[in-house]
């Protein structure tokens, strides 16, 4: 098949790898660029683990082919913490509230929460739950996740 060289902008860096047309963005990030922070659960757009930001809006990276992402700005979980390793306030809040649990769904959840708090800095519990309905947690424990989002909302508004 027709492999080709592809260069994408991820977390502000230009990174290159090889992709077939059928290579999903998620597989390209993980297998070619070594950015394994983006997780893959269902690979057909249901679980939300592979959620990332494309041009500032969440998308399922298993439902976009890597070739389609050329020329777009991508942000993954690897881009959240500061270069010195200091966690982003949303990550900090998830750590403090034990919102990670097993951690598998966390990268996708974090990206969804970034978009949520950007659009709605002080969401209600119901708004949080509705927003995160596209991110499945197989620990089946959304309580700590919701608590973490509320804490992150407070931290960000207080300028933490």
């Amino acid at each position: 098949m027709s492999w080709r060289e592809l260069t994408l902008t991820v977390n502000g860096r230009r990174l290159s790898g090889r992709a077939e047309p059928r290579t999903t963005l998620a597989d390209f990030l993980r297998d070619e660029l070594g950015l394994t922070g983006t997780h893959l659960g269902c690979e057909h757009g249901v679980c939300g683990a592979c959620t990332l930001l494309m041009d500032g809006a969440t998308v399922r990276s298993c439902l976009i082919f890597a070739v389609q992402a050329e020329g777009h700005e991508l942000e993954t979980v690897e881009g959240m913490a500061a270069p010195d390793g200091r966690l982003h306030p949303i990550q900090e809040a998830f750590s403090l509230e034990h919102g990670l649990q097993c951690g598998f769904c966390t990268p996708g959840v974090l990206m969804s929460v970034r978009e949520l708090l950007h659009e709605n800095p002080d969401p209600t519990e119901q708004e949080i739950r509705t927003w995160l309905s596209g991110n499945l947690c197989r620990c089946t424990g959304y309580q700590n996740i919701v608590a973490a989002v509320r804490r992150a909302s407070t931290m960000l508004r207080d300028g933490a």
Partner: protein
Amino acid sequence: MKAAPFEYCPAASLDEAVALLAGDEDAKVLAGGQSLVPLMAMRLARPSRLVDLNPIPGLDWVRLDGDRLSLGAMTRHRQVERHPELRRRCSLIAEAVEQIGHVAIRNRGTVGGSLAHADPAAEWPALVLALDAELVARGPAGTRTISAPDFFTSVFETALRPDEVLVEVRLGLPSERAGTAVLELSRRHGDFAIAGVVAVLETDGEGAVQDARLALFGVGETAVRARAAEARLLGERPDDRTIAAAAEAVDPDLHPSSDLHGSAEYRLHVARVLTRRALVQARERAGRRP
């Protein structure tokens, strides 16, 4: 869960997209990819060529002109949902679109893609049926207009020819006096509807119904207008009794099937209950701005 190989053809223009479609009988249009790519991942679809419309500039727009609404086929659901002027003029559309999938799906999924995919349990087909829409398709011979009832032919089947691209949908908005509602039952928020209904109700100065539209989804091979139920409402006062009678009259227009989410009988029951509730809600909203 990996798609079969295909030839990727980003189209720079509509004409190029049409030519690329015509050049391969197993080609498919790629719009938002929120339905097609999962089907490809599961190998339920194996197009040999994907014609990507995303690079074509100027296919996404929300144009509101009095009672007319025009949407470009590549308009993302979120664009529609977050259009303040449209929400003020006709909250029905935003309320229906909010029920599509999840935010990440709506950021990417398109109006045209949803219509061309023609899932009988999806919201857009019911919306365009209720709002007497026209769909505009571009093919090798030029542009043609298809009315919403003619557009949906069966499950996942439309009147689009293999070398045609859906480019625009034109909807007629209900009067500002009309009350509207969209209700659906699904297992979880964002899942496809087990059954759903779009209702528009407008009364005249005497309180009698002068416009009634009911479009149901999830209850047959395509979304469908419940004509018999609409007829029960016209000219009547929409009191509880009339509404209950209209809801009972949805049956002849619906042909639900049974699957693991519910039997045909259950779906009919849900459709009747949702129709009644939607009509009550539309009645409460009629005559005042939401």
